[in-house]
């Protein structure tokens, strides 16, 4: 995979769409900078007919386009093994066997990919194939070339892995869902998604999850980042709530940036 990307590097689109729970955000990039950013409320790619997809589609330029889906349609698993086999085929069989043990649905209906995090951990990620087909069709109808379909959580993980001192976890908050990714020295160890309720409920859920990780993974998460896709609620209130739990927020580096958009600074 790495060799393929090294020899055949993929081009990142200049037009990027972040697909949130109940909104979409359009980004135009130039020289690795976001030059234009526009939010479309009520647009959901999963239900294009119900939302305002047509309004947004008009705004799209006939350029190479990419979509960054939020964590909601994905299923994440971090598998831990004593030792990972070097052979790719063996590793695939091992991950498939592990996934079948915990995943009740038909795996064939999902696009499943996994990534070696270190010598012991694997990150498995699933998404329904029908959703991908639906998105592809949507763009094909509009004659807009779709060359990138990514995932915001993985983009943030990649971004934080470059930090000298990455936070112990990050919170990715969208309109209706929230994703918590706990890591140890930049390597994800636990990922949890949950539906968003009130701000206090979310803070309590985060606190509970921190305690869970503390007691099950032998680490003490203290620092975190918030990546907030919500328009109405500010992350500062959430940070204030979590500060009472001795959790310190270090989101300043992400201010006015979009770490989930690949190719942007």
């Amino acid at each position, binding site marked *: 995979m790495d060799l393929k*990307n090294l*020899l055949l*590097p*993929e081009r990142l689109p200049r037009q990027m769409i972040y697909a949130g729970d109940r909104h979409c955000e359009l980004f135009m990039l130039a020289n690795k900078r976001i030059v234009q950013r526009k939010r479309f409320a009520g647009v959901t790619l999963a239900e294009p007919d119900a939302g305002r997809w047509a309004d947004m589609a008009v705004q799209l330029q006939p350029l190479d386009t990419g979509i960054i889906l939020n964590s909601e349609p994905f299923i994440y698993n971090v598998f831990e093994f004593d030792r990972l086999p070097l052979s790719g085929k063996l590793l695939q069989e091992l991950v498939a066997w592990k996934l079948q043990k915990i995943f009740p649905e038909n795996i064939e209906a999902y696009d499943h990919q996994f990534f*070696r995090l270190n010598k012991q951990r694997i990150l498995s990620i699933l998404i329904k194939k029908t959703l991908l087909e639906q998105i592809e069709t949507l763009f094909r109808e509009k004659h807009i070339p*779709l*060359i*990138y*379909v990514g995932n915001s959580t993985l983009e943030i993980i990649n971004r934080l*892995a470059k930090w000298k001192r990455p936070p112990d976890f990050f919170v990715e908050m969208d309109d209706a869902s929230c994703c918590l990714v706990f890591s140890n020295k930049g390597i994800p160890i636990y990922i949890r998604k949950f539906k968003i309720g009130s701000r206090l409920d979310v803070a309590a859920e985060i606190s509970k999850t921190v305690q869970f990780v503390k007691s099950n993974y032998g680490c003490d998460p203290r620092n975190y980042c918030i990546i907030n896709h919500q328009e109405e609620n500010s992350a500062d209130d959430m940070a204030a709530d979590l500060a009472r739990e001795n959790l310190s927020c270090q989101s300043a580096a992400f201010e006015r940036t979009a770490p989930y958009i690949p190719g942007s600074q």
Partner: protein
Amino acid sequence: MRKIYYNLAGTRKIDARAFALTVSVILLAMVLFNGITILNLASQQRQSRNEKNEIRFSAQKLEELEQKTLQYQKEISVLKKKWNPKLTFANSLIERKCFSFIFRLNFLEKVLSGSMRIRQLNMVNHPPGRIQIDVHALAQNELLELYKKLLPYDLVIGSENQTTENYRASLSFKINDEKK
């Protein structure tokens, strides 16, 4: 942690610039590598050529030396042919003179008493040759004493005469080669 590449799009596009850059770097690395290899090979070939030249030079020297040796051997053989008769002659002389005259004369001086005189001495230049002497003695017992001394040496008394003044005897005896 290695970067996670995750793209689910059915149609993807290759970044031509990055691809060209990667290919250029790879090509450059290959050219560099090949250049280094060629340089190394050239250097090795040069070294090998130098060594071959040295070997050829040494072989030439060796051949020259062999030719000189052959020449000397020829000269030696010519000289040998020239000197062989002389050498054979000289060797035969040496072979013939393989005994000591002095030893024999010393022997005679020992066995003869002080009053006896040797009038004649014949010595053959040949190791097993006999020695002939004519001796004069004042008394006969002196002669007898001499006979006694010469008996172990295969003594042959040729003649014995008595005159008014002395006794004369002609004797021959054989001394083994003292070198043996």
